[in-house]
Structure formats: structure tokens, C-alpha cells
């Protein structure tokens, strides 16, 4: 379990993290969400004792990271896949890390196998693709078989195959009962990976809830209906729900505030044929941008290009 209380970090005049308090529950995947520059990486570095907080405190299993003995057995972390000497072989890199925490050499081969790098273990890490570097970093995080795992933007810059692999790997880790704390600036990515969300912007906590609750609160669900008897349906819905015409050529209604089943039953009871009845999940990205709009560090000149509600599942292609 990771617990932060009043965590604050100043770099000169810049406030990177501002009075941040949160807790990461054991045995769950918790997403750490925020726009670029929100202070996610700084927070993670403070968790690992790499940066010293200006104020406040963060503990892992109730202890300061810097007081942990052989910490690789407690927390495994991948903050930057490029923290490897480019002329050192993947195996040598893992070997020195293992040795520092009295982890047997046998385990190095195990984790190499686990992430599928056995074939290239003797090659210099500098020649690795980003995906391979990312795997090497994960292998390093797993060396001590820790209960807590931390990843900073693990899918950033990966191809779809790499993203899928990381996503599935994280689910496997969580299924093992491990605590996974993973940061991202993409809500759509987190929606598929994390059970809980900690959302920050400009170093401040915006919300800490379950992912489900966050999406429910942040988005409004609508239903899209198409029918040859659209006008009749509109009359029937009048007063029961808020109705808007969808894009003109479409010949569809967008209904707010009622369940799809309600519309279906209403149509059946009145003998109306339906050609389409589809629930729309409000755009996650839109909701996220709404929430963090105030706290994005650098605005583009016109960042307000709100996107329309998209059908369920369409956000899977994002990221």
C-alpha cells in the first residue's frame, strides 16, 4: 500500500506537486491520471525516495522507501525504460540489479523469460526498440517478486501490439493479487486497466474514486434511436426525457435521461418499429478534459475542440 499525505515538491519557484494526499489500495490496479506536466512522475520519484519532498510524506507499507531494506523485494518500479547503460547487455543490467538485493542469478533468467527477452539477453540494451526496453524495465521491476508494482506511462510511444501486451501483463499482475500503481495521461487507457483512479492536475488532487464511479460522474449517458416513425416516438418521449435531433441527415434522435430498455418497451407498446437503439457512452476524453481543463500546464491556442459523444467501444482505438 502506498500512502501520501500533504506531499509537496517545489523546484525553485515551480510547484510540481502541491499538497497531494492519496492512498493506493493493496491488491488493486490504481491508475494515476493527469495531463502531461501534472506531477505524476515527480510523485513517483518521491515514492521511490529519489526526490526529496519539500513538505509532506509518502510511505510504502507504512515505511519511508529510503528506510526499506532490500527494497526490490517490496516495490518494483519502472519509471523510465531508458535508465539502462546502452552498452551493457540486458542480462548484465538485470544481473547487477539482482545482485544488489541478494536475488539469485536464476531469477534473472526467469524474468527474462517472463517478458520474452531470453533470445536477446546478451545483446546491448542500447540497440533495443522502445517496446523491448519497456519489457526490460518490467523484467527489472519483477526481479524481487514484489507485492507492489509501479509503472510510469508504460504504454507511451508503444505500437498497438506493445500496448496490448503491457495491458494484459498488468492484468496478470493484478490477478496475482499484486498492487499495481500505473500512471497515464490517457483516461481511455486507464479505463481499461485500472479499477481505481487518482486524478491530478497541476500537482493537486482532483479526484480519487473507482474508475466506474469516475466515468459515471464525469460523463452523461445517452441513447440513440432511429425509426421510420420518429415523430411519433418523439411525441411519446416528450415530457419523459430530454430529446434532441442528432445530426440532420442522420434521421435519428438522441435521448437523454432514460435507459435504452425504457425506449424499447415504449416503442413495442405503441407498435413503433425501431431501426437502431444504441446506448452512447459519453466521451471519456471529453470528460477528462473538462475536469482537468483548469489545470493543464500549457494550453494550446485553441484546445477547446470538444468531441461529440461516441458509441461505446470507440474509445478503445484511442491511445
Amino acid at each position, binding site marked *: 500500500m502506498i500512502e501520501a499525505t500533504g506531499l509537496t515538491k517545489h523546484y525553485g519557484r515551480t510547484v510540481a506537486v502541491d499538497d497531494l494526499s492519496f492512498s493506493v489500495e493493496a491488491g488493486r490496479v490504481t491508475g494515476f491520471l493527469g495531463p502531461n506536466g501534472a506531477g505524476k512522475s515527480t510523485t513517483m*520519484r518521491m515514492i*521511490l*525516495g*529519489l*526526490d*526529496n519532498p519539500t513538505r509532506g510524506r509518502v510511505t510504502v507499507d507504512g515505511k519511508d*522507501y*529510503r*528506510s*526499506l531494506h532490500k*527494497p*526490490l523485494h517490496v516495490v518494483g*518500479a519502472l*519509471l*523510465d525504460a*531508458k*535508465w*539502462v*547503460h*546502452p*552498452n*551493457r*547487455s540486458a542480462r*548484465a*543490467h538485470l*544481473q*547487477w*540489479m539482482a*545482485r*544488489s*538485493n*541478494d536475488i539469485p542469478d536464476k531469477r534473472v533468467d526467469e524474468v527474462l523469460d517472463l517478458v520474452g527477452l531470453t533470445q536477446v539477453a546478451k545483446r546491448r540494451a542500447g540497440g533495443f526498440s522502445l517496446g523491448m526496453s519497456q519489457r526490460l524495465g518490467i523484467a*527489472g521491476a519483477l526481479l524481487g517478486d514484489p507485492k507492489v508494482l509501479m509503472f510510469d506511462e508504460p504504454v507511451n510511444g508503444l505500437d498497438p501490439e506493445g500496448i496490448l501486451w503491457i495491458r494484459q501483463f498488468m492484468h496478470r499482475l493484478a490477478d496475482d493479487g499484486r498492487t499495481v500503481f500505473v500512471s497515464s495521461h490517457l483516461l481511455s487507457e486507464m479505463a481499461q486497466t485500472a479499477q481505481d483512479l487518482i486524478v491530478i492536475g497541476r500537482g493537486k488532487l482532483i479526484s480519487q474514486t473507482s474508475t466506474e464511479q469516475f466515468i459515471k460522474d464525469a460523463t452523461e449517458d445517452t441513447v440513440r434511436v432511429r425509426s421510420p416513425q420518429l415523430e411519433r416516438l418523439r411525441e411519446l418521449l416528450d415530457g419523459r426525457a430530454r430529446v434532441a435531433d442528432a445530426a440532420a441527415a442522420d434521421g435519428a434522435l438522441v435521448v437523454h435521461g432514460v435507459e435504452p430498455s425504457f425506449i424499447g418497451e415504449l416503442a413495442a407498446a405503441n407498435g413503433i418499429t425501431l431501426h437502431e437503439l444504441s446506448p452512447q457512452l459519453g466521451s471519456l476524453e471529453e470528460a477528462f478534459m473538462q475536469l482537468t481543463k483548469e489545470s493543464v500546464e500549457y494550453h494550446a491556442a485553441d484546445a477547446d475542440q470538444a468531441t461529440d459523444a461516441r458509441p461505446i467501444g470507440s474509445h478503445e482505438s484511442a491511445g
Partner: protein
Amino acid sequence: MTLLAVERIKLFSTRSPWWCMLLALGLTIGVTAIIAANWDNAPMPVLGAVFTHTFGLYVIMVMAALAVTTEYRFGTIKSTFQAVPDRISPMIAKAVVVVLLSGLVGLASAFGSWGLSWVLADDNSELALTTANDWRHVAGVGLVFAAGALLALGVGALVRQTAGAVSIILVFALVVESVVGFIPNIGDDIQKWMPFTVASKFIFGDPDPSAIPEGAGPPAIGELSPWGSFAYFAGIALVIYVISLVVVKRRDA
């Protein structure tokens, strides 16, 4: 002990330390060989075999600085501190490994130079290591390399950048220490206390009278005895190294 193994793996699993060691040995022994082969007219003194040790010293100091700065350059220092968060023990382990290795390279380069001089010099009647001073001239190189490496580790950990650390070390040793002598009135007095100048007195100072032909030889400046000179040089190295430990412990990694 395990941390020593860690630092050993780190040092020897990259190429630059190997190149530095080879270069240190090659430069020192190679140039000495040229000197020895051309030493005519008089018997070659023991000091003549170690004139060039400073070349190797600079190279070995670059190696020691690199051992720290590359960790910062590639971010492995963060992995190191993540694995051993007290920070001090891995830095000490690194110092032990690098200092020991540098001492060994120093010994190898000095005895290699001396051995090759013995073979190449026309007259090696004065080259035998007969007195304690003779031994200090040659074996002392190992100590100077070791202390120099410690100094370079400290500078490297303070500066964190390869280019910065290497320039500071080389510019200080090669330029500042000689230029300082040109300051009017006080220049000579300051120069007498410059660390590398003092270190060379440890190697070259108090030769046995017979070893120096016609009073010639490298300068041995300084107020201290040869061993006092070494203590001074090693002391400065240790102070800078300890300061670097304190800074590393406090600073954000």
C-alpha cells in the same frame, strides 16, 4: 560484499573502463620505452622509468570520473538508488572497486615501465630497486593512481556530467597548476601547495644522490616530505570525496 560485486559487474560490463585501462598502460609504458631506448651516455636512473606516470594518472582519473558520470548520464544512478536507497553504501562500494583497480593499473604501469626500461636502456646499472626510496618512486605510482581515482570519483559525483568533470580534472591538473605559478609574488607559494604538484613530489622527491645524473631530474616542489606529500594529496582527495557523498545523499537523484 554483494555491493562490491554489483559495482564490479557495472564497471566491467561496459567497454570504456577497459579502453581507459589499456590507454593508461599503453601511454605510460609506451612513452617510457621510447625514453629508455634513447637514454644514452649515462646510466638510466629509477626516476627515468616513472617520468611518464602522469599520463596514465590523467587517463585513470577520467575512467574514475566516468564510472560516476555515466550513471547520471544514462539514469542508472536512479536504478542504483532504487535498489539501495541509503545511497552511501553503493557509492562507497564503487569507490572501493574503482580505487583498487586504479591502484593496480598504477602498479602495473609503473613496474611495466620499469621492466621495459631495464630491457631497453643501454646502461641499467642504476635501475635496480635497492633502497626504500627506489621502491617509492616506482610502487608509489600505484598509490597516486588510487588517490587520484578517489578525487575524480568525488568530482564526478559532484558535477554529474562527463564533459564537466573531465574538463575540471584535466584543466586543473594540466593548466591551472602551472599557470598559478605566474601570479606575481604569491604564485610560487600557491603552486607549492597545489595537489598534483605535491603528488609528484611523492614520486620524484628525495631521490638517492647516485640516482640523479648531474643534479638533473624532474622538479620536486613542496614543503612536505615525500610521504607527507602523499598524505596531503590523498587527504584532499578524501575531503572532496566525502563532500560528494554528503551532497549525493541530500540531493534529488
